[in-house]
């Protein structure tokens, strides 16, 4: 009896460690499974709390020791009591923080648009160290997305996230707008290595079996030795030399059972052999970006698309469609799988909870700002009112439209579920806790 209870105690202790660790970085864990321990709220009861910031919240919340950590586009990094929504600390950086923190060994790691990468004391917010990259920037190209004039270099307004770090084995890894993937000593911030790609890296690297996997806007997806920073293989995604719309890995990968899954702006989801980079299968999404990071659970891959607004589940081994549900609006947020429920944010200001098996909508929550529908950004069906919104592709008009689109409270943030509470950020400037 003692033996059995001892084993049970050990198992439960292990489970507790795993479940806590699985909430402390982007997509939960270093392999970016996007799966979280239950229970999952199958019904919406109430807003537990909402925490105001000074600007949009694109960052995804993470959880450690009853504290929620996230970045704000107001330039702050926040620590908030998970139970009450009261601020524990905030620390200012010199730029927006649309990156998701990683928390490990009492330290919060996060990057800012100021081009610096920060390590804060998780309890107090005190700065431990900061590291200077060669500077942040958004993906940019001439005539981007068909915007005019076509010889004008335009920064991509949809390159909205910064790379979120992954922390493991005494190192912290992240990508940068300077085109590098960095490995830093987690304790000191010293550079261990950097790996140069051909363009912006704003995806979050996944780490599995000593290999770091991440895509770049240079159209390549890379496998890098996490210890040495040497390239193991690269995979070539699609290119779009004309309008640079169907190129680049904005999606962060997920690794499971020796396979790397990643979305791509070339409108595919790819399954690649983690050892060789050889393509196992791909799913084409009718020219719609897949910016969302796939989640992998129960032999299935969960992802969402932008323009075609599809919520899609495919078989992890074959890529064959299992569930395909037409959503209302674009999705950049990544699905969180919690038992039999999948949560995802929608850019029309809605958090959706769907049945994991059928994809049917269980409940949704719409932020107030989206219900006001300023400037008729949305149709009455809560789709994007595209002809009304994107009425010109000349000069600054598309950027103004994009700003209007963002201001309605879009949920770019990927939801985090802890103890039956769903946490996520909105571009209305709030971090929400729903139960």
């Amino acid at each position, binding site marked *: 009896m003692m033996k059995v209870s001892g084993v049970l105690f050990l198992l439960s202790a292990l489970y507790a460690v795993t479940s806590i660790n699985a909430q402390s970085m982007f997509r939960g864990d270093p392999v970016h499974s996007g799966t979280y321990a239950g229970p999952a709220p199958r019904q919406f009861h109430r807003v537990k709390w909402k925490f105001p910031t000074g600007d949009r919240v694109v960052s995804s919340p993470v959880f450690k020791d009853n504290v929620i950590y996230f970045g704000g586009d107001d330039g702050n990094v926040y620590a908030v009591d998970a139970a009450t929504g009261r601020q524990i600390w905030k620390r200012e950086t010199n730029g927006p923080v649309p990156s998701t923190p990683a928390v490990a060994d009492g330290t919060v790691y996060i990057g800012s648009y100021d081009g610096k990468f920060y390590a804060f004391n998780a309890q107090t917010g005190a700065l431990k160290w900061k590291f200077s990259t060669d500077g942040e920037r958004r993906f940019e190209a001439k*005539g981007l997305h*068909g*915007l*005019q004039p*076509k010889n004008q270099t335009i920064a991509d307004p949809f390159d909205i996230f910064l790379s979120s770090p992954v922390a493991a084995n005494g190192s912290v890894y992240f990508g940068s707008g300077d085109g590098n993937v960095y490995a830093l000593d987690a304790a000191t911030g010293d550079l261990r290595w950097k790996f140069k790609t051909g363009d912006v890296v704003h995806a979050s690297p996944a780490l599995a079996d000593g290999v770091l996997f991440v895509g770049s806007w240079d159209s390549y997806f890379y496998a890098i030795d996490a210890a040495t920073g040497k390239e193991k293989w690269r995979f070539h995604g*699609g*290119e*779009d030399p*004309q*309008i640079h719309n*169907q190129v680049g890995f904005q999606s962060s990968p997920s690794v499971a059972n020796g396979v790397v899954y990643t979305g791509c702006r*070339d409108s595919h989801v790819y399954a690649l052999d983690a050892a060789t980079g050889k393509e196992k299968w791909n799913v084409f999404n009718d*020219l719609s970006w897949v910016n969302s990071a796939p989640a992998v659970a129960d032999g299935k891959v969960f992802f969402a698309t932008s323009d075609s607004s599809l919520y899609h589940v495919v078989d992890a081994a074959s890529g064959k469609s299992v569930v395909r549900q037409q959503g209302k609006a674009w999705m950049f947020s990544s699905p969180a799988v919690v038992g039999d429920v999948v949560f995802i944010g929608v850019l029309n200001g809605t958090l959706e909870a769907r049945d994991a098996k059928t994809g049917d909508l269980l409940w949704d929550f719409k932020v107030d700002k989206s219900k*006001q*529908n*300023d*400037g*008729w950004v949305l*149709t*009455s*069906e809560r*789709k994007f*009112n*595209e*002809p*009304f919104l994107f*009425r*010109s*592709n000349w000069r600054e008009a598309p950027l103004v439209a994009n700003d209007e689109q963002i201001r309605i409270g879009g949920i770019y943030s990927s939801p985090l579920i802890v103890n039956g509470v769903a946490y996520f950020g909105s571009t209305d400037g709030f971090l929400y806790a729903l139960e």
Partner: protein
Amino acid sequence: MTRPAALMRLIAIVIVAAALKCRADDLVSGRWEGTAQIPHDELTVIVDLAQQNGVWVGSIIIPGFGVKGMPLTDITVQPPDVNFAVKGSLGIQLKLRLDANNKLAGNFDQAGNRAPTTLRKTGAPQVEYPRRNTPVAKELEGEWKGDYDMLGYTRHVSIKFVNHPDGATADFVIVGRKHNVLPVDLVTQEGDLVTVDSHETGFSFEGRLRNGKLTGAIRQLATETPLVLERAKS
């Protein structure tokens, strides 16, 4: 009532009704300017309405939306009600009523959203009419085919011109991953330049006949790709 008296009364009613209708038509015909009050914004709306051979015609201007002289459709004028629509991607409907102050007031509907709208007459109508198809040269009649590459795969294009008494029409088909029959709303030939427009899809072709080939470019919104069409083998 005697039969002549009844007849006189009927004639009087018809005259009064006709006069009222003429007055109502006069009231509705004109340039109307005002705003639609959408949340956190105010749209300027300018509408021109007129009668042409007993049929209502009109066009609309919405500054800032790239809408200038777009034709009105489904116009019904049954005073005091004045209703019309603007087809195309915006898909606007206006349901208005002439009020006692000679203003047109009602609703501006778009994509299921509704905004209160009031328009005030500011002058005589300045209705714009859409461009019309022109005939194309005899040697262009028939089917032309060609290919272009985009995003790593080939699209097959076919354009078939047919002349009619009131201008040419064209069948415009692009086959890539899918078979796309594009709705064509304008076919013109000006000098030797031939243009086929599908405004709804954003595709257009323009080219010139050179050495038996129709040489030009296909355009999809802002992307222009060279394209040479050759006469299809029959």
